[in-house]
Structure formats: C-alpha cells, structure tokens
C-alpha cells in the first residue's frame, strides 16, 4: 500500500489545499478565516506548500495594504488526488 503524502497529511496543510481545490484563487485572510489558524502558523504552512510546488503565492500591494493570494498548482492538484486515492485504499472505500 502506498504511503500518504506527509506534506498533505497534516491538518492545516490539508485544509489549505482542500480550500484551494474549489476556488481559482484565495487570499490570506480567507484562508485564515476558514482554517481558524494563526497568521504565523498559516504563513509557515503556506511557504512549505509553495516550496513543494503545490501552491503558487502572489504578493502584491493593493492601495497601501499588502495582499497575499494563493492558488493551487497542477502539481498540488495531482498530489491531492493521489492523497485521496491512498486514503480511500486505507479506509477500504
């Protein structure tokens, strides 16, 4: 049996990737609100996902405010698909 992707097998990172699966783009505040994570922790996990190439992070200044938006990459989408199929195997679904 294949192993679950360790990068996705964490509560917060899995929540982030799952949220990004259904939307084209989401910003930091949306992810923070929906996951109820702290800003620091969310930033760290976003960086880990971006380093693995699972998400793209865009940072820009809108007006005078910085804005961080994220979107799932093809690699991230495939990783989540693979993760779900291993999950199904584990749970005999």
């Amino acid at each position, binding site marked *: 049996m294949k192993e*679950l992707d360790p990068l996705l*097998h*964490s*509560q*917060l*990172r*899995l*929540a982030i990737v*799952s*949220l990004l*699966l*259904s*939307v*084209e*783009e*989401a*910003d930091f*505040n*949306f992810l923070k*609100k*929906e*996951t*109820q*994570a702290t800003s620091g*922790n969310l930033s*760290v*996990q976003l960086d880990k996902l971006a380093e693995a190439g699972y998400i793209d992070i865009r940072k820009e200044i*809108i*007006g005078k*405010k910085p*804005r961080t938006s994220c979107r799932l990459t093809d690699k991230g989408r495939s990783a*989540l698909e693979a*993760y*779900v199929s291993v*999950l199904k195997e*584990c*749970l005999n679904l």
Partner: protein
Amino acid sequence: MEDRKINESESLELISEMIRKTKNGPSAKKDYNAFLFYGYTAVAVSLLAWSLIRFTGKMEFMFVWFAMFLPYFVTLFKDKRKKDTEVVTYLQGMLDNVWKVIGSMFGLTVAAMVIIGAITGNIDFSLMMPLSIIYAGIGTIMTGLVLKEKWFELPPFCGLLIAVYMLMEGDVNNDWNLWFGLAFLIIMVMPAHVVRSKIKF
C-alpha cells in the same frame, strides 16, 4: 487549526468540510450590483436622450449614449481600488471572462463603425442600440446558465425581441431610446433585483 497529524477518516472529513465551505460561502454572496449599475444607467440615459430629442427636435442628442461607457470606467476604477476580494471562485472567474468578451464586442463594434464610417464617409452609430441589447442579453443569459438562475435566462429573451423589432423597423427614431431603456430594464434591472431578493447577505 494546527499543524498536527490526523488520522485517515479525519482527513477525509476535513477535505469534505473545506470543499463545502467554499461552495456555500463566497459564490453565494454575489450582489449583482454591476447589473443594476449598467441597467439603471441605460434606463436613465434612455430617458434623458428621449426627453432632449423630444423637446428640442434635434437627433444630435443621441450622443448622450456615449455616457454608457461611464459605468465601465467607474467599475474599472473601483475594481482597481477594491481588488481585495478574499476569494475568486471558478464560476466568478468564468463570468468575468464572459463579460470581458461582451465588453470587447461593444468596444470593437464602436471601433468598426468609426473605421467603416470614415471610409464610406458616413459614421452612423444607430445600429449600436439593437446590437447593445443583443450583446447585453447574451451576456445575461450566459450568466444565468452558468449560475443556473432562471431569472437571468428567461427575461433577456423578451429584451432580445425588442432588439429584433428595432432591426426590422430599420430607421432610427426617438422611440428607440425608450425601447432601449425598456430592454435594459427587462434584461438587467428586473432579474438582478429578483435574484438579490433571494440572497441572504
């Protein structure tokens, strides 16, 4: 939520919960203000153009229709300032592209009329009225199909009938202004109000 390991069933539950959140949240909060903005502008401009021509007898007042470009520039400026939307769903992204195409068709038609008119020596924008109704109607119907919202699918067909009538009548006259305003009332204003009334903000 923390960076902690979870078991398999918790994982599956978490994925479902997060997907459910994106389905019930951002996409349901669209306010359709753009429909009301363009719709009411069209109605106001149509009444203004009709009144000016009715009381002065000068068809040159048709130029007030260029005010229809105002909502475009206002929304462009507003979007630039208010680009702090928390989330863009695939549906929103697709609808944005639909209306970009419709908007481009407006611009290209005006440009084509200017160029062809300059060549033939007669620049005539009268066909812009029925064409605008057709473009806006198609955009609204496509929005309705994407959102599965019947109020954006059916009323625009009545508006399209007005455009067909104008094209068949052929000669532009002052009544076209009122027909145009009525068409936008049916295509954009009425459906947007009905759909907004169904949404809980």
